[in-house]
């Protein structure tokens, strides 16, 4: 039973043509403090339990330590499940096997999947409570759905060269870079538009402040993250 806690998340930023469902909670940026002193940044208003709590953490370890079944198929599934549980628990602040629905995207993606927002919402529909959406997702529901996702290898990663082509497609003049304005326009008006925060973060990483451009080839190589090899091949 989840203890009722008042959640005070920050507001969603609307204004995109395509409306996502309960969207990303604006994460408190780790960059320089914004806003006038004295204001409450969105993240801080959210109630959170302690990240660690003696026994539940060890209980988690214990869950992960559950004996592995034989080899072959069973072994692979058990291993996948353990991975999913681990990822889930990282976001389970209250140690009660539920996570905020807004974190599901992070969990799914950090398990190696590259879903579109639309695909993510389809998935959410399967794991959320049917009657009343409580804003939480329970591990019980999440685990089988996610296991299937990983076994079916849905939402496969995007190879580096495909990503490069995508940038090149936006680069009309084929000059090897996008101006800030171009990038902002494409990212916030097309596809599955970025929120303001997402846009800012992307720019902070990739924008060359002197020329106000993003050299996408360099940007891609800087940002490519190694894939976990132990996903089933």
């Amino acid at each position: 039973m989840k203890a009722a806690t008042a959640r005070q998340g920050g507001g969603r930023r609307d204004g995109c043509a395509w409306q996502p469902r309960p969207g990303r909670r604006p994460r408190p940026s780790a960059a320089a403090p914004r806003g006038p002193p004295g204001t409450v940044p969105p993240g801080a208003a959210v109630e959170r339990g302690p990240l660690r709590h003696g026994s539940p953490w060890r209980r988690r370890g214990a869950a992960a330590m559950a004996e592995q079944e034989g080899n072959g198929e069973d072994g692979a599934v058990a291993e996948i499940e353990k991975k999913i549980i681990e990822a889930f628990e990282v976001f389970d602040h209250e140690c009660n096997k539920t996570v905020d629905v807004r974190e599901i995207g992070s969990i799914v993606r950090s398990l190696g999947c590259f879903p579109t927002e639309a695909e993510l919402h389809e998935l959410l529909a399967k794991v959320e409570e049917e009657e009343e959406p409580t804003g939480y997702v329970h591990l019980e529901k999440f685990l089988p759905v996610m296991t299937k996702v990983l076994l079916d290898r849905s939402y496969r990663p995007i190879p580096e060269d495909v990503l490069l082509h995508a940038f090149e497609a936006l680069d009309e003049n084929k000059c090897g870079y996008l101006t800030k304005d171009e990038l902002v326009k494409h990212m916030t008006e097309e596809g599955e538009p970025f929120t303001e925060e997402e846009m800012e973060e992307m720019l902070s990483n990739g924008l060359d402040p002197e020329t106000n451009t993003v050299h996408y080839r360099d940007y891609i190589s800087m940002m490519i993250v190694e894939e976990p090899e132990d996903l089933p091949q």
Partner: protein
Amino acid sequence: MVRSSSEQSCFCFCSLAFKAAVLIQRWYRRYVARLEMRRRCTWRIFQSIEYACEQDQIKLHNFFSYLMDHFTPSSSKERDFISRMFISGESFKEAELEKYCDYESMEVPDSYTGPHLSFPLLPDHATALLEAFKQKQQLHARYVLNLLHETRKHLKQLPNISHVSTCYSEEVTVCGDLHGQLDDLFLIFYKNGLPSPSKSYVFNGDFVDRGKQSLEILIILFTFLLIYPKEVHLNRGNHEDHMVNLRYGFAKEVMQKYKVHGKKILKMIQNVFCWLPLATLIDQKVLVIHGGISDTTDLDMLEKIQRNKFISVLRGKKRKESNRNVEIQEVNGEKNAEADPAGNEALPSLPLQPRPAQAPSMANRLEFSRWVRQTVQEQIEWCRRLVDISESEDEEPTYSSMVSLTDLDAPCWTRQEEWKQILDILWSDPMPQEGCRENTVRGGGCYFGPDVTAKILEKYNLQFLIRSHECKQEGYEFCHNRKVLTIFSASNYYEIGSNRGAYVKLGPDLVPHFVQYQANKAAHTLTMTQRISRVEESAFRALREKLFAHTSALISAFKAYDKDNTGRITLSNWATAVESVLHLGLPWRMLRPQLVRTTEDGMLEYKSWLDDLAMEQRSQERIQSSLLEVIYRNRSNLETIFRIIDRDHSGLISFEEFHQTWKLFSSHMNIELTDDGINDLVRSIDFNKDGNIDFNEFLEAFRLVKQTQACLQLQNRERESRDL
């Protein structure tokens, strides 16, 4: 609908651009999610290691306690020494303290260019100090001691619970843990202004340890405390405790900065700490304590306790009775010599005499002797108190509960109860679940739930609690339905970029306003990716050290999964094994890519992996030295330590005795030393190679440790300057 060709190509482009955009966004969101996961894992690593370390403190206590249980002192002098070693430091009567820490005879040489203090202090002194510390100057020991004396005099008049009102100065600023990070204090003063008649401050404990400028922070806080006694309020934190200081760096800092007078300064500080108030009440509505509360928290009791009796809150743990093998004669003979003239037979009939528990049957000799010992002990202590009622700092707490006799009309609280009140206030943490349970992670205090909070608030008609004690990413965090506020003022606590610091301001409306900051300019110029990578690197370094420290336990755990002795295990088993050894509750499968670089078809060669870890840690000697370091701290009593290890009292330590003691040590200190390592250590100490260690060899070994230490310190300093 027919489109013109230009429209068509435009349409094609748009559709292509659309698809491209989706692709990029898809990829980018995945990237950010991964970053978020890494950030959380990193945070978890730091926290789990930090709290696991705090357990070591308790383990060390238990270790010495165990030693004491197995060591039969041959004289009362030795018995005293043992208690004092356990308590780590001699406690003085007040007059003795003044004499020992006398500063008036200290000369301040003309060559001294730092600030000069004269008492009573003036605001100019404070500004001079701030400026001096910014210039990295050091305050002369004489002034430090003088300041500490005056601070103590002032603190003694203060009640256990300070009261602040927002009608005098319009706003009160509450700051959390500073942990020796002077830059953060400077930043707070810069942003918020210095303490003054119109600017009240409450500093909520943990001023010292971990950071490198704990002493400067203390000096500044005490100075302002004396200049503006009505406006500046200090609460005691769990790190205002000399036992904790020994471990977490403050004691070391003082000894390094003040080579001649360091000991005196530490002695005075130890005394000052126990006079710090325990809590602050703002407008009777907001309770400010360092750690938290428990379901037994009683503000009335807290107000009446003699807080200075609790020099270190880490004492007072119940000794393990199990292995004790005590002889009744020893106790009686021993204690009678020290008992007061009234003797333990003539028990005066005062109402508060401790009642002996029901005597167990004589059949169980061990039980009986234990009971006798305890009862006799209690009676003797009680008698001592009768004779020595005037309270002073030389009180040595015993391990059995005692009746507080200083105020015969006062309610009859036991020493244990009082101690628990303070422990809970200084060490507890909030939890989301209801109820109240033991804080096993820290080893002291409780976890308290929202129901406990609600009860306390109702009982004392309070609006909310402010506490510190836990590092928060944003510098502050609410919980328990906004009834508990955690405020943490040490930014970049784990590593540059790990977290912000914050302070909170309250006006008469008691609505909190927060100011956040990060005291390192470098952090601002880093991108989020870079910041996370940097913090992550630091976390993994710490984690690898811990893994290395458990090498032999890990090997055994891996071997259990490698029955055919192939030297390889699956990555899945690796994760399970590691958790079973370290017990950190970390998501090992998530962390694996950072810890295990090379694998072959999903299998890991664990021996070479551990070898790689070892190479990273560079020197085995480092582990050995830190082991010896702990004993080395007590080197002034080497002879007794020698005797502790020499169980059969032969005057020689056999390899076996050495081995046993060291194994015990390493299990308590969570430091790994293989059997080979121990043997090497023993052999290296046995200079004349006669198979035993005599006392001279023992002394010589410590002299060598001192040399190695100096060497390592040099290495560390070099490393630090490189990292900067």
